[in-house]
């Protein structure tokens, strides 16, 4: 069970998101209405500190557990796919107040609604898989 550490990290991450209210519908509503700094502080702070980590990965000062250099995956390029896909995701996020990781965390808070959200997300990923070759990038 060498991967048990990911389970523990998942628990930790869920607690962080819960305690900082970063799973709350209201916090995301406030964010998209630019009425509060809270979520911008959380996400912006996470990005700024992660930038430092990325530099340490790049320079090889932080290596992974096996001593290998860490390379963040290069995201697929495509103007339409990222903007349009992002917009679809933003619509779902703005209405439900849930992004991907919180969908799983919310199961602990609101089981049935979160199961409906999750079923929708799986259906959405399934539809994407079926259409992926036909969609513009």
């Amino acid at each position, binding site marked *: 069970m060498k991967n048990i550490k990911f389970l523990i990290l998942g628990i930790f991450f869920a607690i962080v998101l819960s305690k900082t209210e970063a799973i709350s519908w209201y916090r995301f509503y406030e964010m998209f209405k630019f009425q509060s700094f809270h979520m911008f502080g959380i996400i912006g702070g996470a990005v700024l500190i992660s930038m430092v980590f990325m530099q340490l990965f790049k320079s090889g000062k932080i290596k992974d557990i096996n001593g290998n250099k860490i390379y963040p995956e290069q995201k697929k390029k495509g103007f339409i796919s990222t903007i349009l896909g*992002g917009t679809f*995701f933003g619509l779902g*996020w703005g209405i439900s107040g849930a992004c991907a990781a919180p969908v799983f965390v919310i199961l602990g808070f609101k089981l049935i609604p979160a199961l409906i959200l999750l079923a*929708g997300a799986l259906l959405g990923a399934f539809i994407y898989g079926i259409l992926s070759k036909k969609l513009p990038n």
Partner: protein
Amino acid sequence: MDFISQPWPWYVGGPLIAISLLLYFYFGQNFGASKNFETLCTMAGAAKFSDYFKKDWKERDFALLFVVGLIIGGFISAAYLIPNQNIDLNPNTAQELTDLGFSNVGRQYFPDEIFGEDVVSSLKGFLILLVSGLLIGFGTRYAGGCTSGHAITGLSSLQLPSLLAVIGFFIGGIIATWFIIPILF
């Protein structure tokens, strides 16, 4: 004990999320959450319908354990770590939502108008959640990532596609909160 009972401010959340990312990479994997929707489709047999899902889900067992952790962490938080769900909202936000007909604004994490038991058993309430979920699943896979993968991992590693994706997140989120929510409620 305050640290357990009180919500954590943004300047605690940002660093702890960055540390989660650091550990995820340190453990040898790329930080993200939305690819799991695909993996779960593969596990459910989606490969029968499209070659897109012909992947070995066992290669992503670490990510599935992360997801199990997220679920366990959610239950632990809900049961033990959040004695009250009061949120210190901007008074304008609270007033706006009250005017739209939302009750108990800011006294819980999730509004009854979307997550309440009666609401989700109504057709409208069910569809709101299902279609939102569908947009989340479809959109994240089309864009190639979510808040974790694009906004945090992608932006911090200075990747242009992630900047475009985050612009998309905000276009969608703004349309949803400024225009769709007032129509729905």
